[in-house]
């Protein structure tokens, strides 16, 4: 199960890539997509929506099951991955790349210390 070292993770199986400019990209992990199986669609909150850490920012529906998406950190959505509308399977095929879900402005950088690093997440799964 891939867990790239430059990313941070949550116990709910989201990853977050924190950029130098105070923004971050968020998706679900390789483990999560494997557990869900074939993904049918994702519903994401809208650009401009604010959320707090551990609030839901969307849901992902797979053939067998549905799962909420939980924010790893407080943020404001500034971009959503439009490609997932037509090709939700990108999440299965490339969870850390083309399967990214939202881009946010980080509102509470202190929370970064509460995230799991690759090693800690690997130990969890």
């Amino acid at each position, binding site marked *: 199960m891939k867990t790239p070292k430059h990313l941070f993770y949550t116990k709910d199986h989201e990853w977050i890539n924190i950029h130098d400019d105070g923004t971050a990209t968020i998706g679900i992990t390789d483990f999560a997509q*494997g557990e869900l*199986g*074939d993904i*049918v*669609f994702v*519903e994401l909150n809208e650009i401009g929506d604010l959320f707090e850490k551990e609030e839901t920012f969307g*849901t992902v*529906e797979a*053939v*067998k*099951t*549905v799962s909420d998406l939980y924010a790893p950190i407080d943020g404001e959505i500034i971009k959503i991955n439009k490609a997932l509308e037509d090709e939700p399977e990108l999440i*299965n095929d490339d969870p850390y790349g083309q399967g990214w879900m939202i881009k946010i402005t980080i509102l509470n950088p202190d929370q970064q210390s509460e995230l799991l690093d690759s090693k800690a997440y690997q130990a969890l799964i």
Partner: protein
Amino acid sequence: MSDRLKRTPFYSQHLEAGAKMVPFAGFEMPIQYHGIKVEHRAVRGNVGLFDVSHMGEFLVRGPKALELLQWVTVNDVSILTIGKAQYSCMCYEDGGIVDDLIIYRLASEEYMMVVNGANIDKDWDWLLSQNTMGAELENVSDDYVLLALQGPKSAELLSELTDTDIEQIPFYAFEHGKVSEVPSLISATGYTGEKGFELYFNRANYDVQKVFEAFIVKGATYGLELCGLGARDTLRLEKGYALYGNEITEKTHPLQARLGWITKFSKGLFVGSQALAKIKEKGVEKKLVGFVIDQEKAIPRKDYDLLDAQFNIIGKVTSGGMSISLEKGIGMAYLQTDALASNEPIVIQIRNKEVPIMVTSLPFL
């Protein structure tokens, strides 16, 4: 359950094929290999192979065998001839369903019951408690393994591995034969709604792994996919087949679960018959229906509520999902009979959204 999970003889072959294994009915079983969609489509278009060895098998023998089966199951076993199979269920006195099952008549005084893996212990105890007439009973679940070969190309593929003239086996009938040299009960049954076979083997005496391997090798030219429990569920849902634990439970009875056709009051008294006769006379308060959702991005799931126009709860989903063949949300649900008769619009509560559904006839496909 704290008990260690059991493994079927095909366990290492599943892992080799890339299966994702999950605990199911006390076994470690494959839920999927290459994805539910691929596996589902292989069964609809070509052929798929399922390991369903978690299913339970009981032998019922002797001069009292028929009497016990007539008493404990709802269908009329007296019309079952040697070489034929019958779908049925067992009920409690109140009509609640113990389990659904298939009965095979192996010989004049020998039958095999095939029950759901998750219910083996419960069913066995129930059978023993009802066997006051003294039929001979043997639980052979640990000795028998079961492979299901399902799909339009299943007969062609199976013919390559057996001398039995399988094309001549009618639906719900069986033959004794050999598959890849291994003795097998070859049954023209299945849970996918496609042409197919269920193959029973005795694992105690034979190398059953070689049968599995032979299917993989010979199956390549037929587009065979190994299929897990995930695809088994999406396939049966499209055909409107009941699943124990979902559509049928101890709290539901056959008359509301679309199983009236197997409930034969004419055969005489059986466990549950008096309660069921009363229910039949009164009419059922809720019954099992199928429904589809035409709106995009709305998938029904088990336990979602169905609501009327005033948002009163009038039903509950028993199984739901995305139909891979129809590419829309489908489900089965228990719906109040008067709500069904009223023809008023019905919506389903999907998280914070109410989405219209259309009650439809089953099967979906």
